[in-house]
């Protein structure tokens, strides 16, 4: 099989830099990381200097993601040789046990870390991940709540908690988590849009109005967010169609829905060049037309 270097005509330095970029962006493109990382390690290890250790860690985690236990073990063993007492490496050893579904042993590794260092957030989060993998959502939620009481600024944890609540259909609590995230990340359009989706799902006139407002906010932050655009269209349409609203509210929402319609049509026409999305363009056009008819 051709090497990555040959297939993409890159040097080992390019490969090393690519891995760094993926680390910085926290990408989970594990198959690519394994392809590039494995070649880098096996053929250019001596040139990497101290970078090799962080690369071993990155490749090991990616290897676990792709069920490449052989590669994961190799990386782990190199790290264990170099950093024999490290908590960071112990956590990796635990992750490998998790990948092999040896959850009890993994849990013991993390407990050992926490005995030594009760503030080790990585170990605590791995324990919660084990609960999630075992389908124990209620316990995972409880543990994550306790964790957040101590580590209230952990964005990743708040987002994870909102996902867990959404899966349990506990939309009120999911909304609360997203509110925390929006407070600390006011420019993040994705949180606004997700909040809008949760409010829409909760239903009822008040929640629909809130949903519409947050979809609008998401669009202000990023006018290419199609989910927010469609969300705005749907919430405004539903409010306008409700028998409980005043004539003014109905008129305003019809205006918002009409604006959203024109934006949606524009976006789809702009992409019309591609023959591929012809079916979707037609479907959207008809859908928007039919929803207009039911509203008036």
């Amino acid at each position: 099989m051709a090497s990555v270097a040959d297939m993409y005509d890159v040097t080992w330095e390019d490969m090393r830099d690519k891995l760094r970029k993926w680390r910085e962006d926290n990408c989970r493109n594990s198959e690519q990381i394994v392809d590039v990382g494995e070649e880098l390690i096996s053929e250019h290890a001596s040139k990497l200097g101290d970078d090799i250790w962080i690369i071993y860690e990155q490749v090991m985690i990616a290897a676990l993601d792709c069920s490449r236990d052989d590669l994961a073990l190799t990386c782990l063993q190199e790290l264990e040789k170099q950093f024999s007492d490290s908590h960071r490496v112990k956590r990796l050893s635990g992750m490998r046990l998790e990948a092999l579904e040896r959850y009890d042993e993994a849990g013991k590794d993390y407990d050992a870390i926490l005995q030594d260092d009760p503030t080790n957030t990585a170990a605590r989060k791995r324990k919660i991940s084990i609960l999630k993998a075992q389908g124990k959502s209620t316990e995972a939620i409880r543990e994550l709540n306790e964790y957040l009481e101590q580590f209230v600024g952990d964005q990743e944890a708040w987002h994870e908690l909102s996902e867990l609540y959404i899966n349990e259909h506990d939309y009120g609590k999911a909304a609360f988590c997203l509110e925390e995230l929006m407070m600390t990340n006011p420019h993040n359009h994705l949180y606004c849009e997700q909040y809008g989706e949760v409010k829409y799902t909760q239903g009822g006139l008040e929640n629909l109005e809130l949903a519409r407002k947050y979809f609008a906010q998401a669009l202000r932050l990023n006018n290419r967010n199609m989910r927010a655009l469609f969300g705005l269209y749907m919430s405004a349409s539903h409010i306008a169609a409700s028998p409980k609203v005043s004539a003014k509210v109905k008129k305003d929402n019809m205006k918002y829905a009409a604006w959203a319609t024109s934006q949606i049509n524009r976006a789809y026409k702009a992409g019309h060049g591609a023959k591929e999305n012809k079916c979707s363009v037609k479907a959207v056009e008809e859908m928007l037309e039919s929803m207009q008819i039911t509203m008036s």
Partner: protein
Amino acid sequence: MGEVELSCRAYVKMYLHCCLFPRCSVNGLLLSSSGSTGGAVCVTDSVPLLHSHLPLAPITQLALTQVDVWCSQTQQRIVGYYQANACVSDSSPTPCALKIADKISEQCENAVLLMFDGSKMAPDYRVPPIVMYERRDSKWTLKDKHTIMLRQWEETRAIATQMLESGDQALLVDFDSHLDDITKDWTNQKLNSKIAELASPANGSM
């Protein structure tokens, strides 16, 4: 309750959808291009929908509406729903799966709910890794395995495996991906052609 036939194209696309997002729960719709014949349902196509936030309403509603419109433009109808849970050991229908399936059964009498069994998706498994449910007395109950037909299963399995090995799942577009980039085609015409090409030496209908 009647027989359900699952076409190669429908199965392969569902399978590739699961493989494209192995860490997420995924779902989608099952379509039929033929009218029902004496209670039998022939699933001729599948449309992959989401790989994130399955229980949330807006995008699901949007997708259902758009697929509905597309179906009426192409003489197809929605006859079922499929889902694969992120948690491999759990293949039971979630509340949102039941809800969507209920909605579909309002319009389609013999609607089918299909769950993927993640634990049986390894390449050495010879049986289809799916569990089907039908609506009986307002409840979704397991379908008798003998009423589920996959014509030319070995062929279908071979095609699915071959496409997975060539990384063709990267070509699949679900509704979520379409919303990320609306130039992508959630009807997956390209993938359909590829599947047809691989299946063409086979005899009979797909």
